[in-house]
């Protein structure tokens, strides 16, 4: 088949669609629905993925957290809760022994604290005690004010650095700096607000406040609280070294016999990633069911219309064959037409989905803050996938009608009225 014949076939497909506008539109509806499902699903997932990536970048892909508990949760929960707490003294020992880390900081936490400002109570805020080293990591970067200083730390000053969500819920006018809040009846002055970090289900990260370690102990006491030690490797490639070094130090500090298992966990942000992977799997699972279904409907719709079209044009096919069209030319002609229908379907879907993506991503987050991870545009790779899928569907839907057309006997076809 020559290039000029291919061009001719594409023109033919276009003409044929134009002369049957309504029919072509209805035939491609199934494909429109199918491709729209794929695109919208991909759009949500890619938004989710990049939001996760951003969050992980901030909490640090090169940070490990040595903890009594294991972040993976699940079965390990029961066995980890019987472990001995990691004490402040052990944390101090660890900090003095670790060598290759960029920085390390202990954190001690009260999960469900209450903060009082003027006469209002704000519940469910996580209150942490840590050192100024935390302020040197991306997780401690402030958008307003500053992190607390080593001096404030040593003097157990009543200062606090608050997460962005805490700031926005207590101080909607964005004037948190310098204000006094009460934690467990103690007055603390806000010296800094941490940059927004979390997205979606990880937004608890923004719902925390940080006190100097000594100040925390002054308020909450230190008994019954296990310390978590954050260790920043200073590069993802150094993680393995840091992990092993930390493990060795911890085993020494905890006096573990070589035959004993670790009685602590080394957690990484990867733990979150496996959780999001599961969420993504659910989204795909539901989506793929819908997509397959609508593609089957779409393929049948187009196949049906192509069978009708081939029958209607039996005589035309006879004429074409009589003057020299080969079977494969006819085959290609019918498949081009089916594919053109699918491409039109894909274009309609792209248009609809772009409109949906834009309007949902601009409007929805105003009512549902969790939806802010959605992007107002469609990612490029989705457009490519959609075009490829529509080509594939077109060829699939056109194949049987095209074979029927190609096999027509010219004598019989010419006699058709």
């Amino acid at each position, binding site marked *: 088949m*020559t290039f*000029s*014949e291919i*061009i*001719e076939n594409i023109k033919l497909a276009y*003409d044929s669609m134009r*002369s049957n506008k309504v029919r072509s539109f209805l035939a491609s509806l199934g494909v429109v629905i199918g491709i729209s499902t794929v695109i919208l699903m991909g759009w949500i997932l890619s938004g989710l993925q990049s939001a996760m990536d951003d969050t992980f970048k901030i909490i640090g892909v090169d940070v490990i957290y040595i903890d009594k508990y294991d972040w993976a949760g699940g079965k390990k929960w029961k066995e980890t809760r019987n472990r001995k707490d990691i004490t402040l003294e052990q944390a101090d020992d660890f900090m003095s022994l670790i060598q290759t880390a960029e920085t390390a900081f202990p954190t001690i936490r009260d999960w469900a604290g209450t903060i009082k400002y003027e006469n209002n109570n704000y519940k469910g805020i996580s209150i942490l005690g840590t050192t100024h080293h935390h302020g040197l990591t991306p997780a401690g970067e402030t958008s307003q004010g500053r992190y607390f200083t080593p001096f404030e730390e040593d003097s157990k000053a009543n200062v606090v650095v608050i997460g962005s969500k805490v700031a926005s819920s207590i101080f909607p006018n964005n004037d948190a700096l310098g204000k006094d809040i009460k934690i467990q009846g103690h007055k603390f002055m806000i010296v800094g607000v941490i940059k927004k970090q979390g997205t979606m289900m990880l937004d608890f990260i923004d719902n925390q406040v940080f006190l100097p370690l000594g100040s925390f102990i002054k308020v909450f006491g230190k008994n019954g609280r296990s310390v978590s030690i954050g260790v920043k490797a200073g590069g993802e490639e150094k993680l393995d070294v840091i992990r092993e070094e930390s493990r060795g130090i911890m085993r020494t500090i905890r006096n573990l016999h070589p035959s004993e298992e670790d009685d602590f966990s080394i957690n990484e942000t990867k733990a979150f990633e496996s959780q999001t992977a599961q969420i993504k799997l659910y989204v795909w699972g539901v989506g793929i069911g819908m997509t397959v279904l609508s593609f089957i409907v779409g393929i049948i719709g187009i196949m049906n219309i192509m069978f009708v079209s081939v029958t209607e044009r039996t*005589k*035309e096919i*006879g*004429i*074409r*064959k*009589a*003057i*020299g*069209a*080969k*079977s*494969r*030319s006819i085959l290609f002609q019918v498949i081009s037409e089916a594919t053109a229908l699918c491409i039109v379907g894909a274009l309609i879907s792209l248009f609809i989905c772009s409109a949906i993506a834009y309007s949902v991503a601009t409007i929805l987050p105003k009512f549902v803050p969790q939806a802010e991870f959605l992007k107002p545009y469609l990612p490029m790779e989705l457009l490519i996938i959609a075009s490829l899928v529509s080509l594939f569907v077109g060829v699939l839907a056109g194949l049987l009608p095209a074979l029927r057309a190609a096999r027509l006997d*010219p*004598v019989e076809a*010419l006699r058709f009225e």
Partner: protein
Amino acid sequence: MENKIIIDIKNISKIYQMGEEKVFALRDVSLNICKNEYVAIMGPSGSGKSTLMNILGCLDTPTAGHYMFNENDVSAMDDNDLAEIRNKEIGFVFQTFNLLPRATATKNVELPLVYSGMPSADRLERALKTLENVGLADRAEHKPNELSGGQRQRVAIARALVTTPSIILADEPTGNLDSKTGEEIMKLFNDLWKKGNTIILVTHEEDIALHAGRIIRLRDGLIESDYINHKQVKYD
């Protein structure tokens, strides 16, 4: 050159199976047609003339016998090769014109060239020239439903001529035309024949057949007679 044989069929039979019964559409027909002959094939309906035309036009293959077209064995060819022979060597003219209704005269005439793979600029040039030769230069952009019957048949003839085929095969070309227009079309065939084309005319009308230089009559799948027409209408 006068005697070069273009069509050489030997002992051709075509048998259709109708349920239990075998129907012989053609029985052992042999026939030669030379370059620049003007042949009329005649016969009542059921005589086998349509079957013979389909076989001569490479639209159908015989059940038995040999068909040599320009020294190529057509009876041994597959569908693809037959399509190529039809495209390059045979120009069809049908009773019902068989133009594509949605395409302009030019596009209809270009069609065989599309299938022979000619680039579109050359195609357009050839098609326009051929339309001019059949006297339709001013109707090039009209669609079939904007043309009269005679004009449509001229478009069909242009389409048949555009590939400069070895033979022109016309099946009742005046059957759907009034007698005056029919006469004009027959004059056009006469001109084409005088220019050196080989023409095979299938008809059941005596006065149309008289335009040909040789008349072959079929009956019940056999050649009944094959003679030189001394009363040929030549428009001299």
